[in-house]
């Protein structure tokens, strides 16, 4: 391609018509939406605290089953919270980072997200197995029916089901993003 042809192409490329500038209010609305996303994350922490409260309440009931189940609930919440913190506290690339470095950072974060989601899924499966084992043991080892026990088992199952659904959705999202980022990285290296 001759220099003059290239210069013509550059001129043509830059001849795009003017577009309306973004409105400050719109940008502020987007910034607020980002804040709401942070609030949604905080809501996850509140759910975790609720799980912790259930665990402590069980421990305070004093009988052996409750202490065991309460301790397990606290451990479960601690593991999930630690996994979430590890994923969310991953360093984000600077907005003006060089493209290759920003992409490498984004891929690292996406991989961490996939591992985090997988860990959450397995932790939830472990939690469900534990709850089932506790329910079966209580059913076989005690004679009288305990309404409170059924309520606790139901509440724990609901919480675990919600965790599993969220973790699965998160796994799908991050896996898709990782695949796409890998494809982009491959294309940039061509």
């Amino acid at each position, binding site marked *: *391609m001759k220099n003059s042809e*290239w210069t013509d*192409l*550059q001129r*043509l*490329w*830059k*001849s*795009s*018509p*003017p*577009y309306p*500038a*973004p409105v*400050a209010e*719109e*940008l502020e609305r*987007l*910034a607020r939406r*980002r804040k709401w996303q942070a609030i949604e994350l905080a809501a996850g922490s509140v759910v975790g605290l609720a799980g912790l409260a259930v665990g402590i309440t069980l421990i305070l009931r004093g009988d052996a089953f409750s202490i065991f189940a309460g301790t397990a609930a606290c451990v479960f919440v601690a593991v999930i919270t630690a996994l979430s913190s590890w994923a969310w506290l991953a360093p984000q*690339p*600077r*907005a*003006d*980072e*060089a*493209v*290759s*470095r*920003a*992409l490498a950072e*984004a891929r690292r974060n*996406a991989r961490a997200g996939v591992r985090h989601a997988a860990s959450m899924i397995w932790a939830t499966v472990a939690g469900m197995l534990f709850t089932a084992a506790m329910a079966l043991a209580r059913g076989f080892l005690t004679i009288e029916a305990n309404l409170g026990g059924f309520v606790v088992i139901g509440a724990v199952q609901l919480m675990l089901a919600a965790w599993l659904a969220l973790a699965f959705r998160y796994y799908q999202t991050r896996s*898709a*993003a990782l*695949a*796409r*980022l890998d494809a*982009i990285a491959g*294309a*940039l*290296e*061509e």
Partner: protein
Amino acid sequence: MSASFERVVGEHGPLIRRIARSYEMNSALVDEIVQDIYLALWQALPAFRGDSELKTFVVKVAHNRAITHVARESRRPRAAELDEGIPDPATPPDEAAEQDESRGRLERAVAKLPLGQRLVVTLALEGFSPAEIATVLGIGVSAASVRLHRAKAALQLSLEEVGA
């Protein structure tokens, strides 16, 4: 809104839109990318200390946001799959129709390139030197020169394909 942001919008608004269009042909999604880039710039500008040219800073932010968009929109159609036409959000004036048509062909030719070459070509069309392209991409200058040479050749072929 800070004065710096207004300067960015004034000086580099069209550049930002062109970068967004090189990643996405769907005009609604282009608007989404542009808005995302503006938001990233709005948030990042206070940290800009003038270590590089403002234009280089803007281009890095724009490409990084556009790549994030492409990664996030994995289930939507990609730019390369939508090369049958570029909807223009602004109605072109009659006297500039021919130029608009030529520009549309150039944009289609650029959009047909693989992402790596597209990125290099758009930077070169914006007037970036191989050294500046290397800074934006985070690669060596010689590697940038080689990629630029290949990308220009690919663009020429692509232009012939779209009939420019």
